[in-house]
Structures are given as structure tokens and as C-alpha cells.
């Protein structure tokens, strides 16, 4: 390698080139990380104990926050939609308007963002601490693949739990909306649920399902990757945790738009 410094007018180009190569390397490593984890998922043995612990951690322990955010999202959406719909004299359609918004869009996105904040950040911190305290190296020198013990079970747990969490968020959103629509705004319960039954079809539910499945992979992939390749010390773990939350949140929104434009209306 030639270590002679370049003439100063060329240095910005050198820096740009270096940044591009570093960026591409990171992107490749990010993709290869998911590829390896998926490959491990399809080759036995599956670490069932680790999977169950992750399902409990990502899914069960996120329940309270999902119940709360689901209910309040439904309630506030009911208020806002009522305000809009009364201007057109269409308040009878409050139920389906709210249900479609929640099932197709808000349920998968908001529950994924909430789980990212609660479980994704903790997952990054946990794996990051395992890295800096050499626990991951300990697995490696035991001739055991840390991806099989830490990453693959997390990604599978994300795939299994996110659709369920989203379904719970959706149900709470509809109930929250029902409380506001029926008890506060005076709509009949029959109208609320009847119109939902008429206008919400299977494609809406499947759209939400596919989105939640993808978000489950995105959140666990980003969180485990950032923990696995953490920097040095407590500061490195803190930085990785922040990066994981920010990156996962951005990817959720970008992927949501992509899926929203590809999946059938």
C-alpha cells in the first residue's frame, strides 16, 4: 500500500472515496449478517430455550405498552376522524375509517416503533455488553457460533411476535375508538362495528400482517447487528443503542412506505 500523502487538492476526493468504501463495506456486512442468521435458522439445531426467552422478552414483556398505546391511539383517532367526518355528514363511517387506518397502517407501524424503543434498544445493549465483556468471544472459542445463540433466535422471535403484538394493538385501538365513538360521541355500537364489518376486508388485514412480519425482521436484525458490532466500552454500547433505535425507526417508516405502495389497496 502506498502511504505517501496526496497533494492537498486531492485529499477531499480521497476522503470521499474512503467514506464510500467504508459505507459499502458496512452495508455488505449488514446484509451478510442477516443472510447468515437466516441460513442458521434453516439449519438445525434451533436453540429453543433461547427462542422462548426472546419471545417472552420481545413479545410478552411489551404487552402493557402495546395495550396502552393501542387504546390511546384508537381514542385520539376516533376524536380526530369524528371532527373531519361530521363536516361531510359521514360520521357513521367513523368505525371503518378508524379500523382501516389502524389495521393497515398505524397498528403495524406504531407497535413496531414501540417495541423498537422497549425491546430493540435492550437487545442491542444486552448483546453489546456481551461483546465488550468477551462473552461472545467465549462462545466463539468454545467452537459455538454466537449467531446461533444470540441472533437467529431473536430474529425468529421477531417474526413470531410482531404479528401477534400488532393484532393486540389493532384490537385495543378498535376498542379505544369504540369507547370514544359510542360513550362520548353518541354513535351506536351497532353502527360502529357494523360498518367495520362491511368495509374492512381481508386484504386490509393481510397488509397489516405482512408489514408487521417485515418490521419484526427489521427491528431484530438492526438491534442484534448493532449490538454484535458495538464499539468500545460503555460509550460504544450507548452509541450502538441509539443508532439501533434511530436506524430501525427510519427503516420501519421507509419500508412502510415501500410496502404501502406495493401491496394491493
Amino acid at each position, binding site marked *: 500500500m502506498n*502511504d505517501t500523502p496526496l497533494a492537498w487538492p486531492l485529499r477531499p476526493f480521497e476522503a470521499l472515496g474512503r467514506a464510500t468504501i467504508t459505507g459499502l463495506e458496512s452495508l455488505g456486512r449488514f446484509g451478510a449478517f442477516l443472510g447468515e442468521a437466516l441460513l442458521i435458522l434453516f439449519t438445525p439445531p434451533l436453540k429453543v430455550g433461547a427462542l422462548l426467552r426472546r419471545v417472552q422478552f420481545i413479545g410478552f414483556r411489551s404487552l402493557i405498552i402495546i395495550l396502552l398505546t393501542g387504546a390511546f391511539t384508537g381514542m385520539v383517532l376516533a376524536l380526530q376522524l369524528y371532527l373531519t367526518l361530521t363536516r361531510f355528514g359521514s360520521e357513521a363511517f367513523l368505525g371503518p375509517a378508524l379500523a382501516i387506518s389502524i389495521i393497515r397502517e398505524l397498528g403495524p407501524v406504531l407497535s413496531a416503533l414501540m417495541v423498537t424503543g422497549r425491546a430493540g434498544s435492550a437487545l442491542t445493549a444486552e448483546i453489546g*455488553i*456481551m461483546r465488550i*465483556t*468477551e*462473552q461472545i*468471544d*467465549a462462545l*466463539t*472459542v*468454545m*467452537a*459455538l457460533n454466537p449467531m446461533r445463540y444470540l441472533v437467529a433466535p431473536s430474529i425468529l422471535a421477531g417474526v413470531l411476535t410482531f404479528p401477534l403484538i400488532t393484532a393486540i394493538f389493532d384490537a385495543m385501538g378498535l376498542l379505544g375508538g369504540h369507547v370514544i365513538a359510542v360513550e362520548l360521541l353518541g354513535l351506536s355500537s351497532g353502527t360502529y362495528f357494523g360498518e367495520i364489518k362491511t368495509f374492512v376486508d381481508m386484504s386490509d388485514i393481510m397488509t397489516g400482517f405482512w408489514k408487521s412480519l417485515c418490521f419484526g425482521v427489521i427491528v431484530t436484525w438492526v438491534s442484534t447487528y448493532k449490538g454484535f458490532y458495538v464499539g468500545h466500552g460503555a460509550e460504544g454500547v450507548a452509541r450502538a443503542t441509539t443508532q439501533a433505535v434511530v436506524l430501525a425507526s427510519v427503516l420501519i417508516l421507509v419500508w412502510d412506505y415501500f410496502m404501502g405502495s406495493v401491496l394491493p389497496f
Partner: protein
Amino acid sequence: MIKVQGLTKSFRRQPVLRGVDLEVPTGSIAVVIGRSGGGKTVLLRHLIGLLRPDAGSILVEGVDITRLTGHEIDGIRRRYGVVFQGGALFDSLTCAANVAFPLREKLRLGRAEVRRRVRDGLAAVGLEEIGAKYPAEVSGGMRKRVAIARALVTEPEIVFFDEPTTGLDPVLVHTIHNLIRDLHRRHRFTAIMVSHEIPEIFTVADSVAMLHEGRIIEAGPPAVIQSSANPVVRRFIHGEIEPGTDPQSH
């Protein structure tokens, strides 16, 4: 026999190892000494296959592990036991579960055999009673001993110790060294230890190698190192300050 030849490694163009040569006969305890930040741990991480060198070779019973793929090196690692500097115990598992982990996952032994070996392993380090506790609930010295028990429970042929007594009081340092000596007498493993516990380490080692500025500058039996004429070795083992590095003189 473990043979290191011309091992070099740089990080961001900063050379850390500049051609390390080292030989460790089978069944002996070799200790690598040297100043903090001198590359001892980097050398050890090459020996256990966690780092790849820029050049040079590491022969373990004639096999150059620097040329093996990830899968192939696992075959060599199955013969290893490693005690990390901080213990590297799995903090989500109890001490007993930590010791049981390589037996269950690496050797795939049955439940009764695992239980027996864990009991014996913890007894060998004098910690039968703390099996149910988590690493965070025991002292630093106990953690190191549990880490030693975990490294030795699979009866490895080669054991690596990365500064196993760092941060411990002199009594515990003595206890851990005695324990290593005693376990070595019983199991006859080959051991490579990185340490700067002078002069305590001379009672444990069969051979000592001094790593300085990325090279082994002197190696031999403890008595030879202790009576070395090399001024760098003499200054290090007597704890003397190198000329021009005394902060008080500035």
C-alpha cells in the same frame, strides 16, 4: 507443541506485533510477560483464532491455524480452554450453568454426567457452594475461579489464561496461581498465560517469554529470565522505571 513464527499485526497502520517467535512444548506452562499495552492480549487472541495476523504462522501440533477457515478452526478450538481477563462468564446464567454450558453445548453430554462434572469442577476450584448464584452475586476472585472451572471442565489439551489475576489482591493472586499449578499437575494440559504478576509468576511457569515492542526479546526457564542481562527485562522484572519515562522528572 505450539510454535509461533514471525507473527506480525498492525491496527490502523500501527504495528503491535513485529515478528513474534515463540515455542511452547506440550504439557508445559508458558507465561508471556511484558508491559501493559505491549501486545500480550493481541498475541493471545491470535493463538485462540480471534484475530488473523498480517503475516507469520501459528502451528498447533503441526497445523497452521492462521490458514484455517472459520469452520476448520472450530476443530482446533474444541481442544482449547480459555480463561478471559474479565472471566467472560455468561451473566444470564448461574455459576453452575456457566460451568455446565460447554459440557451441554460443546460435548453434548447427558444430564447426570453434566451434573457430576459441574460438581467436580466447582469443587476443584473450591466453590461447590456458589453454584446457584449468578456471576454478579459473587466476588471478582470467585468469578475468576468459576471461569477457570468452566475452561477446564471439558478437559482441554491446551488452556489459555489472559491475565487471570488482574485486579485481585495478593492473597487471591497466590491462590489462583496455586490453583492453576495444581490443576496443571492433575490434568497435564499445555498452558499459555499472559501476565504481569512479577515475581509471583516465576513459581507457576515452566518457561517465561518477555514481549517488548512487538517482539519476544528473551525467553527461557524462570531462572534464566530472572538473571537476564538484558536491561529491558531486568528493569521490567525489578519494576524499575525506564530512563526518560519517569513522570516525576518532568
